[in-house]
């Protein structure tokens, strides 16, 4: 079943530049999607529209068949989606546990430990953690929420290769084991290779593909 659907979504910047020109796409639960494209092509804008951070100039974005513009963007952000950013975007005066507690009423320590943080690290100020640890906290915050859709903007952009590989595995598990719909905007071929579906955004148009530079995508 489609959890998200984009129907003829168009977006025009304030300077009248049309960045998205009638995008149609469907996304399912339990799958990981990668959105590729050159810088400035509108990938992050598309992610913002999916996450209800902005509204399309025209067209509809449906969550389980309902227009999110009608059900409310703030409600959509609160109930249906969780973001993971390249720069982690943690609240800097809270500990990892408190950051996770922002989106979840469940105990936050187990999920942080599951993602590789120790108890001591989970109680430390987030700014005193490494980049990889901070990104794990951000992922924990996204996973701890009830959101069925995880939107990640360059989640491994600031990480070393080993950590990036771990994060890739976590995101993949979120889709395939936890049944979430994971949408990732990335330049990383390694990350895109893990996706079930790749969307290429070129000149405002979105094309789905199951191949990446001649490499056949893995399927579960």
């Amino acid at each position: 079943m489609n959890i998200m659907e984009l129907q003829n979504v168009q977006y025009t910047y304030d300077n009248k530049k049309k960045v998205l020109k009638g995008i149609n796409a469907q996304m399912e639960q339990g799958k990981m999607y990668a959105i590729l494209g050159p810088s400035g092509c509108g990938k992050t804008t598309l992610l913002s529209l999916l996450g209800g951070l902005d509204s399309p100039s025209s067209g509809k974005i449906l969550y389980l068949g309902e227009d999110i513009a009608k059900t409310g963007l703030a409600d959509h952000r609160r109930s249906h989606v969780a973001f993971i950013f390249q720069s982690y975007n943690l609240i800097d005066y809270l500990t990892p546990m408190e950051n996770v507690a922002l989106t979840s009423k469940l105990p936050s320590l187990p999920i942080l430990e599951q993602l590789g943080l120790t108890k001591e690290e989970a109680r430390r100020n987030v700014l005193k953690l490494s980049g990889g640890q901070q990104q794990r906290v951000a992922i924990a915050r996204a996973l701890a929420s009830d959101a069925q859709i995880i939107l990640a903007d360059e989640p491994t952009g600031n990480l070393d290769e080993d950590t990036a590989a771990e994060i890739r595995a976590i995101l993949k598990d979120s889709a395939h084991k936890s049944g979430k719909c994971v949408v990732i905007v990335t330049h990383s071929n390694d990350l895109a290779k893990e996706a079930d579906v790749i969307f290429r955004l070129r000149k405002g148009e979105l094309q789905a593909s199951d191949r990446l530079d001649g490499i056949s995508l893995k399927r579960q």
Partner: protein
Amino acid sequence: MSLWKRACLYSMRKRGKTITLFMFLLIMATLMLICLSIRSAAEIANANIKKALLGYFTVNAKQLDSGITEDMLGQILAIDGLSGKYTLRSYSYANYFDAERNPLEINTGSVTQIPEKYANAGKLVANSNTESDSYFIDAGFELTEGIAITSEQKNVVLLHEKFAERNGLSVGDRMFLGDVSDKSRAISVQVAGLFTNTKEQEAMEITPMYDLYDNIVFTDPATASYLLYGTEGETSVQYGDFYVNDPDNLEQVMAQVQEIKGVEWDECILTRYAKDYQNAKTSLAGLQNIVFIAIAIVSIISFLVLVLFLTLRLRGRIHETGIYLAMGVSKCTVLMQYLAEVFLVAAVALLMSYGTSAAISNQIGSTLLSQVTTDTYETTDLTGVTETIKETLIDLGLSEIKVSVSGKDYLAIWLFGMALCLGSTALAAYPIMKMKPKNTLSQMS
């Protein structure tokens, strides 16, 4: 996590910013409370001065054939705005005789030629209450024996100790007072008391003998009325001093007095005496104006500085705002959190401001008030006799005024402080709250 918990965590962990805001709010609240306390104290001082320096007016009816009659007095006292306190006075000269009608000896001083009819005469002062007579208030007369004369007593006199000693008179003795121009008009009086003067009479050499302190005799208005106007059973006086409830209404009351019919007001002189109060009021009004201006300046500066401070603080939190919005926290809740942070700090600052302002305001306020009241005293002296400042302050009841933080002022500062925090936070947050979540996101990115 609730917004209150987030607000508490922010306030505790961003200590530098919290302390800066706290210090600013504490200083602001302290300054405002000091100003309000001084204003309240000035209001109390004003009320005390009103009570202490009662305004009054004098009706001089010396030119009227019958003076101020009892009927005229009744009509004056019926006018609204009069406090009910009044003094009736008459001044004349009388010949003094003993009980056997033998002339009594007066102090002739350095006079060589004694005017005819005045060989045994002196100044006769009638007052409805000799204790409040200017001789006793300002000239240093003191009752040494017996009782003061009031309007309840009739046919009584107060004699100078020296005069009594010279003539062998003492309290309880009887004597006669005779009209200097009409020898047939004499009245028997009893000595009710003796007085003395604590200050030396000025220019004694040129003072007529009948005006020498030794020769002054105080009596009741009824006795003086008989000698002056020949009245029996009814009292007329030359002067009446009438005190008003509110010195600000003095002119109005005087105008009403002059509307009383059947009196030749052209022959009367009405004089107002409220300079003491007006001077005091002007001085206090000056202080109140300064305090009002100070309150206005502190309020405006506080608002501007707080808006600037919070604008800078919130500008650094666009990133954080974006994160909250991305998590689905509403703009209203984010704003409420920022407000809660300011309110938490403001509440502590306002609580502490009670102690700081109470300590400072009493010092500054007392100094300011005493300065104002000192100025007041120096400009309001009626007699020209300089008294010590301390005595005057006690007289006016101002030395007892404590400049302290009242519950009303404290409540006002809480309301004002919280309103200021609300307004400045809303104003500072407005540009951020106006932004689209995506723009906030791009700002934070």
